[in-house]
């Protein structure tokens, strides 16, 4: 269990604007994803926990050990923190073989045990055959496994991963996800994974922390966050929502009903607790929750005529982009049914509408 409260300020400099990081969170065994755009403080958070950066204020505890505590001026050096760290570029020592890289990390153990432990890790991560090679002679996947093995060889109590899958192709990504899942079952330690890839959050994350400009804006399971983003900023960061400005014109708690004015149209939605008539809100709806139909005659309830701008083919779905920034994602068979449409209606199902 890692518990962290970190505050770190960087004053403005000629080449950089002022930045401050203020986060507080805890993470138990399992993968906790730190998600956010670049410059949101994700890596800085990892570096504070690893001890490469000293926060100005706060406290960091790993299990029952204090790694950092500002009031009592405790700040353990990186050497004493028992955190495995997988660097973005892996940081495998280029002048050492893979075996030497692992041995370097196990050097505090007695000689015989070290040897055994290195062999064990080589075997576990399928690296025995290439143990004598240097990093530049390894494939991307081997380098990645080696860096994870090296981070784990000292039996850390926490694993920190800084965008380890960045720039990898789909196959290597899948390989990496499998390795990380294996690590989770075998080592059962908390992992903090920095990423700005949403698929990765869903693929790996048990918990998710969303950072923006040095602040924690939402936390929870990836599914819960995707279903209920806390505010429009989170929805934007996730990038999986249509967001429209709308106005609440009617609220009826008795019939669990609301009416929203969206441009020149009115949409019926469920009752939104805590909102008032006349509120300007962000209407958020996921592209795959919208439907389409051919326009013949008058639009029905919650149907909006829209002009199709273009279609984007994806591996499993087709994305339709309409004027007014309306994105709709359809399955292939569904799209094939509507291919011949000349004029379109977009259907906003009542249950899919959320306001932020």
């Amino acid at each position, binding site marked *: 269990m890692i518990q962290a409260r970190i505050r770190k300020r960087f004053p403005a400099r000629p080449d950089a604007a002022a930045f401050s990081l203020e986060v507080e969170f805890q993470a138990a065994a399992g993968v906790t994803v730190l998600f956010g755009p670049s410059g949101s403080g994700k890596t800085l958070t990892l570096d504070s926990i690893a001890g490469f950066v000293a926060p100005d204020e706060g406290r960091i505890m790993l299990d029952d050990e204090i790694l950092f505590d500002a009031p009592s001026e405790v700040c353990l050096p990186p*050497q004493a923190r028992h955190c495995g*760290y997988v660097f973005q570029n892996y940081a495998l*020592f280029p*002048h050492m073989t893979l075996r030497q890289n692992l041995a*370097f*990390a196990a050097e505090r153990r007695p000689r015989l045990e070290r040897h055994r432990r290195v062999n064990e890790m080589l075997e576990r991560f399928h690296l025995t055959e290439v143990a004598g090679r240097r990093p530049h002679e390894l494939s991307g996947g081997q380098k990645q496994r080696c860096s994870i093995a090296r981070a784990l060889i000292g039996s850390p109590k926490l694993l920190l991963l800084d965008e380890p899958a960045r720039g990898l192709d789909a196959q290597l990504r899948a390989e990496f996800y499998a390795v990380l899942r294996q690590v989770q079952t075998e080592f059962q330690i908390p992992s903090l994974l920095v990423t700005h890839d949403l698929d990765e959050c869903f693929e790996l994350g048990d918990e998710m922390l969303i950072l923006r400009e040095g602040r924690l804006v939402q936390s929870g399971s990836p599914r819960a966050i995707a279903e209920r983003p806390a505010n429009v900023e989170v929805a934007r960061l996730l990038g999986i929502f249509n967001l429209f400005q709308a106005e609440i014109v009617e609220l009826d708690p008795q019939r669990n009903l609301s009416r929203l004015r969206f441009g020149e149209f009115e949409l019926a939605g469920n009752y939104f607790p805590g909102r008032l008539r006349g509120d300007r809100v962000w209407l958020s709806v996921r592209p795959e929750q919208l439907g389409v139909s051919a326009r013949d005659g008058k639009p029905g309830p919650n149907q909006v005529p829209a002009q199709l701008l273009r279609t984007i083919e994806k591996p499993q779905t087709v994305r339709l982009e309409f004027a007014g920034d309306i994105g709709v994602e359809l399955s292939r068979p569904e799209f094939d049914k509507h291919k011949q449409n000349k004029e379109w209606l977009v259907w906003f199902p009542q249950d899919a509408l959320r306001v932020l």
Partner: protein
Amino acid sequence: MQIDWFPLWLSLKVASLATLLSLGVGLWLAYLLANRRFRGKAVLDAAVVLPLVLPPTVLGYYLLVLLGRESPLGHLYEWVVGSPLVFTWQAAVVAAMFHAIPLLVISARAALESVDRSYERAARNLGASEWRVFWRVSLPLARRSILAVSVLAFARTLGDFGITIMIAGNIPGRTQTIAVAIYDAVESGNGALARTLVIVVSVLAIAILSIANRLAARQAAQ
């Protein structure tokens, strides 16, 4: 013509020894300047470069005062070694070091600073002490640049004249290095000897330069 090769051998010996000693001092200073924050760092930084800008005779004069038989340091040396330092070939080594150290510190510091920080962080994260981080990671990764500048420093120390003549003097067969011997030969009208020594030094310098360039190129290719 009978040529006395003693000055050449002496110069090679002095330069080798000075380069080795300077490497020790220079790497230590480079490490401090590259990695540590401490009071007086700016002063040390400036002091290291000073020998590059001061006239060699001025440096020589300071050293003569500092290491002379009457000075505390001179006394200490005499007490430890049993003979005075000034006007011996060992003094020529000291003189040569003042050329090698600034060069080594500036380049070794740049080389150490150019080592990707993530390697050093990784090493610390894996439990390595600062000492091991330096010897096992930083230094090996910067070794070619440091080797290249050591070769250059060797060449530079081979040719010192000003400081050497101030504190080691010009005693043929004892402290006369090749640079001093050339001056001596010209001064005494021995043109043939001067020409021969000049050619030898030039060839040596060009050879050393090509080695240094090759080393630097290999580091760049890494």
